[in-house]
């Protein structure tokens, strides 16, 4: 049993008093900074990177990994409490989590998120341990054509995020795609849509966009009718989910874990899709799809599990190939290099204690998080009893700092104001921001892979159909479209009939 001996090595490394301590520090820091609105895992790790240079390589990576999934937890907390996702993945949690909070079920939503994440984290850590090495082979099979088809599947699925008009949701996705293209064309270096402002040459900042369209738009909405503000009720009867809630979350958590684990392995973009994909699946599987967008438990449990599972399995390409799956991983690569470890295919063989130690620490870190977070839920919920007019100036201050800290770019702050206005206008026009955000994240990748696939395929568009993985993904997209539109069409017909009655 090589796996057992490897895991034993990992646990003995991660279980040393020193490493447990740094793991704890990491998850606490991650959680704390994650709950500060507007500051996500990327900014957090970038800020804290220098602190880790003094530590042993294993300890520093364990701490950074702790910050990473700690911040994911924390980010979900702000998404649920004040509708402010710090990362693209928690944008989905905000949809139903925030609605639950508005109904006085903030504690339940937070508990579901924590428990779902813990379960997903545990399972996917085991998957990482078992499959890390063989799975990388699969990930490498993904070329430009496959990625393009995967993105198409993701976008098609995203229209299920909408609980209003599908047309408007599609338009929001396309708007997001276009906004994502702002910056510099990587193929020719030509600047695009940046209005001549060099500070936007690398594109609009995700955090600025998210803070604007979600956070600020929401603050403005709350300021509308200050007098009859109903938002969070102080009477929060129970913090923990009821038996019923538990039953409702089991299946979504299992499915979310599976989806997240699978997508997380793909370097570049896979993990981003996980929570969106899970939401779509849950909405489709649900007997009460109309609850989605109004505080459905499955809408929190599924995406949160998927998000956390994806966060864990995205360590696979990092640890086995040295390929960062997302910006946070890129920072981890930097940390490894500074520590004198060049990540690559040899790390597992040359540094088994480090490799397995990190894997074991993931599980330990997840355990710490759930222990840490369940009692904290009471505290977070109390935070909501703070009058809103006190809360929102604080949110504005934290968002400003958070956005600025990412790149020290003041134009990102101007973008916050612009997207706050745009987000508010769109909100008033009853357009939902989540599809826009997904489009924004996927836009550049979609174009990049489309063009790359065309170059590599010598301009032959059938390249998407002749490659089996790509073809499978496209067929799946088609299937999703049919599933989404058929009921819509049928419903329309029903409506027509009722009207003519």
């Amino acid at each position, binding site marked *: 049993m090589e796996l057992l001996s490897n895991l034993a090595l990992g646990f003995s490394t991660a279980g040393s008093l020193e490493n447990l301590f740094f793991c704890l520090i990491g998850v606490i820091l991650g959680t704390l900074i994650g709950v500060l609105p507007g500051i996500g895992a990327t900014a957090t790790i*970038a800020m804290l*990177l*220098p602190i880790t*240079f003094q530590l042993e390589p294993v300890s520093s990576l364990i701490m950074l990994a702790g910050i990473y999934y700690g911040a994911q937890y924390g980010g979900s907390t702000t998404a649920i409490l004040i509708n402010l996702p710090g990362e693209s993945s928690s944008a989905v949690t905000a949809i139903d989590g925030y609605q639950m909070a508005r109904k006085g079920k903030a504690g339940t939503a937070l508990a579901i998120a924590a428990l779902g994440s813990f379960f997903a984290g545990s399972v996917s850590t085991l998957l990482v341990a078992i499959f890390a090495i063989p799975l990388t082979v699969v990930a*490498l*099979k*993904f*070329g*430009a054509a496959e990625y393009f088809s995967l993105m198409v599947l993701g976008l098609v699925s995203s229209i299920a995020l909408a609980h209003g008009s599908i047309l408007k949701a599609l338009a929001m996705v396309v708007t997001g795609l276009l906004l994502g293209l702002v910056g*510099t064309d*990587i*193929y*020719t*270096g030509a*600047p695009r849509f940046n209005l001549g402002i*060099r*500070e936007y*040459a*690398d594109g609009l900042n995700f955090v600025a966009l998210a803070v604007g369209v979600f956070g600020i738009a929401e603050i403005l909405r709350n300021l509308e009718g200050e007098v009859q503000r109903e938002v969070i009720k102080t009477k929060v009867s129970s913090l923990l989910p009821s038996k019923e809630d538990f039953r409702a979350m089991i299946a979504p958590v299992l499915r979310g874990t599976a989806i997240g684990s699978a997508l997380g392995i793909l*370097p*570049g973009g896979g993990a981003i899709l996980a929570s969106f994909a899970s939401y779509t699946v849950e909405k489709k599987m649900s007997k009460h799809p109309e609850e989605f967008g109004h505080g459905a438990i499955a809408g929190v449990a599924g995406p949160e599990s998927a998000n956390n599972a994806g966060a864990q399995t995205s360590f696979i*390409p990092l640890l086995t*190939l*040295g*390929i*960062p799956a997302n*910006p946070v991983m*890129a*920072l*981890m*690569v*930097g*940390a490894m*290099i*500074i520590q*004198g470890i*060049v*990540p*690559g*295919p*040899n790390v597992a063989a040359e540094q088994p204690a480090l490799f397995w130690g990190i894997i074991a620490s993931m599980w330990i870190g997840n355990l710490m998080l759930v222990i840490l977070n369940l009692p904290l839920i009471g505290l977070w919920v109390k935070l909501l009893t703070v009058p809103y007019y006190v809360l929102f100036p604080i949110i504005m201050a934290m968002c400003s700092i958070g956005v600025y800290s990412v*790149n*020290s*770019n003041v134009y990102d702050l101007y973008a916050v104001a612009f997207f706050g206005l745009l987000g508010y206008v769109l909100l008033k026009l009853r357009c939902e921001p989540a599809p826009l955000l997904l489009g924004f994240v996927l836009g*550049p990748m979609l174009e*990049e892979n489309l063009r*790359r696939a065309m*170059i*590599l395929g010598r301009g032959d568009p059938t390249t998407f159909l002749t490659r089996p993985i790509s073809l499978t993904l496209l067929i799946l997209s088609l299937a999703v479209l049919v599933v989404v539109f058929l009921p819509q069409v049928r419903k329309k017909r029903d409506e027509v009939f009722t009207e003519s009655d």
Partner: protein
Amino acid sequence: MAVSVKVGGFTVAAILAASGAFAQAYPERSITMVVPFAAGGPTDTVARLVAEKMSADLGQQIIVENVGGAGGTLGAGRVASAEADGYTVLLHHIGMATSATLYRSLAYDTLNAFEYVGLVTSVPMTIVARADFEPADFPAFIDYVKANADTVTMANAGIGAASHLCGMMFMSALDVPLVTVPYKGTGPAMTDLLGGQVDIMCDQTTNTTKQIQGGTIKGYAVTSPARLDIFPDMPTAIEGGLDGFEVSIWHGIYSPKGTPAEVNDRLSAALQKALADADIAARFAELGTAPSTAEEATPAALKATLETEIGRWKPVIEAAGVYAD
């Protein structure tokens, strides 16, 4: 705010007037080292390693600030317009020279906006290919690429990236245009090379060493003037018959124009001391590079390098006809 601005103008004047006396106490507070790329990248790594050692000698903390964007020109622009008091410096790589041509409208004048501290390191590059690429050695590689110019695909990490520069140099040396496939950064480019989606790439040893040693990609040649200790069997591109084919990613430290010479010399001395440190040499060796010598870590050497490199890359970039703005 008008009052404040006036106060600001006064401060600058005061600092300039007092700079002679001021330099003796230098540094009396922490120094900001701007790295014009994201935290965690190879340039950031170099900066943080050097900053830590320089801090020890200067007796003041050097804080690394990442001001990424637009191929490093935003961070360079920030330093160019910073106060010339020695408390803001820039660590930039070869991009300082190439952006002078790649960007037709820079916010600063590359040769006249900075003072020089010294060279830090020069990272050699390697010409690599996917693991199952047919040619057995570098001469065969050149023949193969020339013969199959219309099907061989060459990856790079984006406009102005080291791999892009080296790729342009490679194509101009062979005098064949190849199908180039740009990526957003080295990570995804390497993924596709590992997966065999693209054929060849030229990239820094920092990124390729472990993969070559692990056998997951094939190394054909190095772009340094002499063979590298880590790859004694790999020929240099010049040995392979590509005359003058020498590309390295050199890094230098700059300060804003008008920074007193004493300050630059003080920084330069700290840099030389840092580079002589055995720990730095060991860390750099892991990255496949070596610290610059004491002669190179001087203002004069950096100035000369920048001027030569601007002149060397100008025709290559203009011939390729690529611009980043």
